[in-house]
């Protein structure tokens, strides 16, 4: 049982505000991923939860108990460091045994527990080696072993697989997720890699410049980003943005005027209503659309916009095609069979289901 609550956390380093007024509730046994670009405060947040840093303001509760001013050793947390932080002069066995030794367990119990952890992580064959003889993946396993051997309630991981090569990363991703289910601890995972975040997290917490941007399931943050930052940061490539302004079209329906091509597009009734309800009718807006929601046709169609092909990236299972809509570059995701010529004029249209509207001034989502 471990529920973590962060209340109005502020952490400053001299004049730099690393974490600014962060509120977050993490449920028991949940796998939460803190995601953001480097310097966004995600690691600082994690270190505050661990007790390695004390926040300047705010409270940290674990199981409703205020631990804000408790040292890391007084909280039941395990922390896996980005660069493993293994004890270089101790063998793998002694590294994993260290937290148990600190608890004062008997030699026999320690051996049992280390063996059990080594079994889970499949590192029994390297128990007598020193860290510097190990590969990155094995070092990571040892660091995990040291963390799980104590059966902690809270499991904190700081970019644990960021330094591994791509193939191995994928393998470790699945292993970590499985480990989380097996040990049943509340897990907070820091990464800058959205693929890791989306594939592992029950919920994803997106941060930028020390400020929390959005909390939600991977599905939510992908499909309903709360602001332009999240929309652009999540997804590869990120969302396309086109400046637009609402106006009244035929039968006084609300349409969006796209200034780059001097054309208007229709939008679903629901979005129209929201724009009116939120009094954004007169505002400058931004239309956001994911590359896979841009429909692409090499034939000229009615109700579609003409665009010119600039770049074609073939990715194997799909293609990313950059087209110019006026001066704006739009990335379109297509089936791999569609390979237009560079300079070819094509027509694109937007899937109404995939349309997101943001306020240009504030960057916040409107609909």
């Amino acid at each position, binding site marked *: 049982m471990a529920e973590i609550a962060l209340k109005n956390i502020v952490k400053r380093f001299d004049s730099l505000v690393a974490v600014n007024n962060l509120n977050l509730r993490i449920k028991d046994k949940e796998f939460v991923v803190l995601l953001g670009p480097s310097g966004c405060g995600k690691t600082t947040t994690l270190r505050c939860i661990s007790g*390695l840093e004390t926040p300047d303001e705010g409270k940290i509760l674990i199981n409703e108990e205020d631990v804000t001013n408790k040292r*890391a050793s007084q909280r039941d*947390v*395990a922390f896996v460091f980005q660069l493993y*932080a293994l004890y270089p002069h101790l063998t793998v066995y002694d590294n994993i045994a260290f*937290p148990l030794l600190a608890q004062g367990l008997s030699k026999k119990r320690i051996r049992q527990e280390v063996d059990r952890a080594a079994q889970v992580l499949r590192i029994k064959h390297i128990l007598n080696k020193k860290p510097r003889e190990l590969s990155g993946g094995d070092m990571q396993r040892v660091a995990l072993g040291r963390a799980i051997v104590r059966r902690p309630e809270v499991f904190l991981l700081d970019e644990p697989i960021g330094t591994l090569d791509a193939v191995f990363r994928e393998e470790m991703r699945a292993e970590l997720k499985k480990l989380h289910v097996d040990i049943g601890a509340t897990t907070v995972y820091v990464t800058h890699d959205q693929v890791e975040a989306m594939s592992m997290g029950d919920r994803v917490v997106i941060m930028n410049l020390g400020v929390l941007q959005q909390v939600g399931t991977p599905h939510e943050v992908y499909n309903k980003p709360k602001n332009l930052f999240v929309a652009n940061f999540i997804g590869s490539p990120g969302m396309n943005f086109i400046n637009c302004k609402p106006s009244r079209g035929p039968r006084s329906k609300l349409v969006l005027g796209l200034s780059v091509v001097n054309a208007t597009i229709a939008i679903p009734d629901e979005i129209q209503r929201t724009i009116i309800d939120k009094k954004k009718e007169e505002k400058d807006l931004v239309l956001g659309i994911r590359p896979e929601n841009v429909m692409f046709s090499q034939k000229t169609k009615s109700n579609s916009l003409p665009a010119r092909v600039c770049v074609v990236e073939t990715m194997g299972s799909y293609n990313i095609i950059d087209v110019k809509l006026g001066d704006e570059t739009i990335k379109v995701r297509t089936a791999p069979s569609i390979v237009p010529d560079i300079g070819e004029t094509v027509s694109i249209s937007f899937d109404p289901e995939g349309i997101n509207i943001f306020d240009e001034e504030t960057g916040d989502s409107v609909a």
Partner: protein
Amino acid sequence: MSIFKKSKKNDTRNGQVYYRPMRDITLLRLFILPTIILLIVINVFPLFWSLFLSFSRYSAKMPNIWGTNPRMIGTINYSRILTDPDMWIRFITTAKYVVLSVGGEMILGFGLALLIFRSDFKAKGLITTLLVLPMTMSPVIVGLMWQLFYDPNWGTFNYLLGLGRIDWVSDPARNLYSIVIVDIWMWTPFVMLLSIAGLSAIPKYLYEAAEIDRASWWLKFRKITLPMVYPLLLVALIFRTIEAFKIFDLPMGIVGRGAVAPRLLSLHLYNVSFVTWKTSYGSALGYIMLIIIIATTSIFIKYLNKAKQ
């Protein structure tokens, strides 16, 4: 590689002589030549010469007549040294000196380093510099200075410690310890500096990991600090042991080489070599000391190499 073109002869062009420039390797050799000559003359040659002398009867004060002075006498010098009961007392006294002074320096130096490294106060740099001062002084001056401190009649040592008239210098039962105290005072900063260097090299994340692992300060010290500083402590130990074993200037400055002086090997070596002028006997004693130092340090170095792995 030379930037000049190589040519066999001096070049004569337009009636002007162009000298063949020197090759880099020649220049290199020329630069190290003075050092090599100096080393041979004042280190290498005396080393072998004294080895030769240690197997002979020779006094540097007598005129050199081959066959008489020096005269080869085999290992007689060595056997006389090793069978002299007084000599064993000197070995033991010297060993006692080494163990006490080096032991004291290691404990105090490492302790001070921990204190200074852990604490964070404004005058930290200044205090560290002040603590290092004794090490920077000339040992002879330090010896003479402490002789004054130790004076039983008007010395400040007894006065400051409120000890009354204790004779620290001419009492043979005590003056070895007086020199040990000065040695510790002078060389503790050396151990401290090396320890601070060692402590600063320990990555902070190891302590963070240990904090997460819920280690007590004692476990952190025993399992992280000590093993990580250990190689540098060994280096300090090696240096201090060598120095303490052959210490001469401090006892000479504080007590002198007279009858009341502690029976240290180095003082004895001085007496036989430069007072009674038994040069060959002194050479043999010097060689025995050299062998002891090499043997002791090679044990330490063995541990050092092990620790580095």
